[in-house]
């Protein structure tokens, strides 16, 4: 795995093209990419294609889908189409931010624990302690002490997934630190920090990149679940989970409150899973079909 990921500066362009063409060879992966592209486009274009997700039109509360409101309205007369579209924006924001946070923390902890023996035990014990809690339970407990806000949701879910990244990184680092090239660098008198940053880090990336789309998917799901439970983002923020929570109260009168945000969540997660499977087969064929943990 490490050899494949070695940088070859001589022909960067051709390498990237090969990488892409291999990724899109599987039709399922292309479907995943298209689904994600659509979600991203919808999220980015939200102000253009949707109205104000907070505007309440009390006279039109719980209106069925129609020309005026494509996806109907909710119990205070807000346009569900606008809320679903802005919900896409929120989901993408949370997903991307959680991936960045979990990877930043996870990489630093994993590299430190794997490379410096003395740090291994203390760092990994904390990580084990965090991983002893089922993901959503830990997220709920964190939200209880942080309080409801978009930033806190990101922090809470990031803390939940960082140890999972750290564990994978530490595993690769333990192998890489014993390789000849690391030994050679050490013999040349290269400092530890430079060895970790220049030689160890790039080589332990490919197994974690595979995890990126799964962590993204888990983050989107966890945010939706937290908001659905009423402990995620504040109720006025358009989030798929929030819309579903309202929909639960009006299942009989207004099933569209469940159907549209539900379809949005499903298609997004489905796309991420397809892309994740494609990435895994490309970057780490050995992991095919192995366990992966979800919220």
């Amino acid at each position, binding site marked *: 795995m490490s050899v494949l990921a070695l940088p070859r500066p001589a022909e960067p362009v051709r390498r990237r093209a090969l990488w892409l063409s291999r990724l899109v060879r599987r039709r399922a992966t292309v479907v995943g990419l298209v689904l994600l592209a659509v979600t991203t486009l919808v999220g980015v274009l939200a102000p253009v294609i949707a109205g104000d997700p907070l505007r309440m039109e009390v006279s039109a509360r719980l209106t069925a889908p129609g020309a005026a409101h494509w996806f109907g309205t909710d119990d205070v007369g807000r346009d569900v189409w606008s809320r679903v579209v802005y919900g896409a924006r929120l989901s993408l924001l949370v997903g991307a931010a959680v991936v960045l946070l979990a990877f930043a923390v996870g990489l630093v902890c994993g590299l430190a624990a794997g490379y410096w023996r003395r740090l291994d035990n203390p760092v990994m014990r904390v990580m084990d302690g965090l991983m002893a809690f089922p993901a959503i339970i830990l997220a709920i407990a964190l939200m209880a002490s942080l309080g409801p806000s978009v930033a806190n949701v990101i922090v809470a879910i990031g803390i939940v997934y960082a140890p999972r990244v750290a564990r994978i990184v530490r595993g690769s680092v333990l192998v890489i630190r014993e390789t000849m090239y690391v030994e050679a660098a050490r013999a040349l008198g290269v400092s530890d920090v430079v060895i970790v940053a220049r030689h160890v880090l790039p080589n332990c990336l490919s197994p974690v990149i595979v995890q990126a789309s799964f962590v993204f998917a888990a983050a989107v799901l966890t945010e939706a679940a937290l908001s659905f439970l009423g402990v995620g983002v504040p109720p006025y923020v358009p989030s798929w989970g929030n819309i579903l929570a309202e929909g639960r109260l009006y*299942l009989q009168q207004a099933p569209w409150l469940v159907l549209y945000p539900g379809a949005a969540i499903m298609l997004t997660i489905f796309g991420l899973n397809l892309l994740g499977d494609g990435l895994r087969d490309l970057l780490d064929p050995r992991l095919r079909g192995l366990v992966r943990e979800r919220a």
Partner: protein
Amino acid sequence: MKTYVARRLLALLPVILVVATVAFVLIHLAPGDPASIIAGPDASPDDVVRIQRQLGLDAPFHVQLFRWYGRLARGDLGQSIFLRRPVLEAIVDRAEPTILLTLYAMLIAVAIGVPAGVLAARHHNATTDQALMAGALIGISIPNFLLGLLMILLFSVQLGWFPVAGYAPLEYGWFGTLRSLTLPAFALGVVQSALIARIARSAMLDVLREQFIMAGRARGLSESAVVYKHALKNAMIPTITVIGISFAILISGSVVVEQVFNIPGLGRLIISAVLRRDYPVIQGVVLCIAGLYMLVNLAVDLSYVVFDPRVRYQ
């Protein structure tokens, strides 16, 4: 074996210590003073001090931490602020629906997942395999609370086969309980069965490539004897690992699904505690679920002995 179990239980102690510390620190991460948050915006300073003293928040951090360890060692999870009763009592009261729901969902997940995975492996790359795996991929893309809502919409609202929500406790007869938990258990279990099916399939495929399978076929054993007697038993080991992981997902999933179906279990308890900032209850539920999770993982490790005689414990 007995000494192995004892050693494993002993090895859990440091983990429990770390988990207890994390549960404590989590709550004390809260920005601001929990006592004034609990007391609310209109509380007088006296009220805040009273709550501080009641929760022991006036002591220094490390004193509080060691008091927490001491109480845990005695099995005391503290006193709920809003329910005005011991946390442990509240948890025991609410555990029945959560545990039954988790087990029921597990049963459904295994009953669907393992046969689907084995079937897919037997017909590797054929239409059956592709259809099952496409189904599994869609299955893992549906969040359990969404599936729950959709099932209520179809089976309760449209068809009227099941109650829309609510829970019938065991003491009023098991049939009512079963009926009230069927939709939630399916909502939880179906999603998990997709994951189990994927693992069972790949484990079966790996085993079917082994030499002893070839040897069995060469000896003229029937295909079903090869698949169900020799291959399946070996494929169970990775599958059991996933079933163990599934337990964590299912028990945390039931926290969410309980909210969908209005089931008064641990999930409702912790959510209402979060909304009311009843920190002792949050800590207690979190700790209990983590403890349950650790025990299940231990049980999974021990079950390897049953399924794989090559695994021997000293």
